[in-house]
């Protein structure tokens, strides 16, 4: 049963890609929500109350309760407001989406972070790692579970598109700031296409 959209509040941070994920999901679902900007260096009492374990954004407040961790939040949004689903119905497909979401957060994102925080040979190795990770995704798009799809979610943006698309914003920033090429347009045309399509849908 769909919940009334009132009393949804998001504690987030303008630069945080995990916050962007939640904002995008709420917008895709056509949900009104209140947004509260958080200083992620000095978490507010509200954030400490609603995310006592990790003390981080994003935190979604709904009906007086809080949900944290962006991928948990995205699934909560999808299961609470069931129009315009962002997850497929089939258990196998759902497992594939979850796998690549965790890959993004556990492998790809830390690799990108390492590019930003390293230099010289270490940075070169980190860039190579990012390329390797992107190639794995590329393979799934070309020949694997996502073959022939416009988005990872099929004809529409789904949960994995949201997760990757919001991260791609920072990829572009890092590329410019660090003067490294993370998304190589030659080997990865489909992931470039995915990023661009996701980015244009965010506006």
């Amino acid at each position, binding site marked *: 049963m769909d919940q009334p959209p009132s009393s949804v509040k998001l504690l987030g941070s303008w630069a945080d890609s995990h916050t962007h994920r939640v904002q995008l999901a709420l917008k895709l679902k056509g949900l009104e929500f209140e947004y509260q900007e958080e200083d992620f260096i000095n978490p507010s009492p509200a954030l400490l109350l609603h995310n006592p*374990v990790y003390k981080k954004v994003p935190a979604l407040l*709904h*009906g007086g*309760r809080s*949900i*944290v*961790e962006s991928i*948990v*939040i995205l*699934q*909560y949004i999808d*299961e*609470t407001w069931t129009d315009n689903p962002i997850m497929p119905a089939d*258990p*196998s497909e*759902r*497992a594939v989406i*979850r*796998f690549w979401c*965790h*890959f993004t957060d556990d492998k790809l994102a830390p690799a990108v972070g390492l590019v930003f925080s390293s230099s010289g040979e270490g940075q070169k190795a980190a860039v190579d790692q990012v390329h390797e990770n992107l190639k*794995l995704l590329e393979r799934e798009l070309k020949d694997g579970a996502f073959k022939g799809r416009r988005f990872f979610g099929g004809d529409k943006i789904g949960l994995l598109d949201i997760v990757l698309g919001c991260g791609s914003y920072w990829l572009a920033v890092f590329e410019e700031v660090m003067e490294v090429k993370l998304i190589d347009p030659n080997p990865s045309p489909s992931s470039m296409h995915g990023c661009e399509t996701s980015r244009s849908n965010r506006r």
Partner: protein
Amino acid sequence: MAEGENKGLVLLDFWVSPFGQRCRIALAEKGVEYEYREENLRDKSPLLLKSNPVHKKIPVLIDHGRPVCESLNIVQYIDEKWPDRAPLLPADSYARAQARFWADLVDKKMYESGTKLWKLKGEAQEEAKKEFIEILKLLEGELGDKKYFGGDTFGLVDIALVPFTAWFYSYEACANLSAEKEAPKLVPWVKRCRERESVSKSLPDPLKVYEFVCFLKKVYGIE
């Protein structure tokens, strides 16, 4: 037909892996038959490498040729594939979010922190002990007076955590850390879980786990 394809359910696993045990518990809760295949982690099978090319790790559940990787992913897949019995996640979306949050926390914290207890020595080990005790107390607080983490029904968080209890003996032997003393409220929960056949049949003997840890310490050159 290539090996492992279209052969019903196959679980590629390693006996001592708490991640593999999660999958065994979930399959047993659902009463689903499957073929268990022990992997030699120093000589991984072509099937494992093909089924999990990204991480090359167990466990992998292969369902009529389609692999599912990562233990919590596998447990949720099992729950969604057989929704008619023994639900492992609650129906309510908020309760589901809580279950996913805590299961994910166990994933992020328990294995790495527990491993440090037997891999490290001296001051580093003392730091690791403090960290591990914090995690146990956090989990103890979340369990509270409930029968299981999800309330009255055994579910995802219990499945995520209970395999690590077979390592408590090793943590005590290697690091002089008694999980039972540090988080006494978990003790009745452990007993309750072990009374379930799915758990008692899936978890290894803690002494055998300790033998394995001693073997690993030799391999890594740790005293």
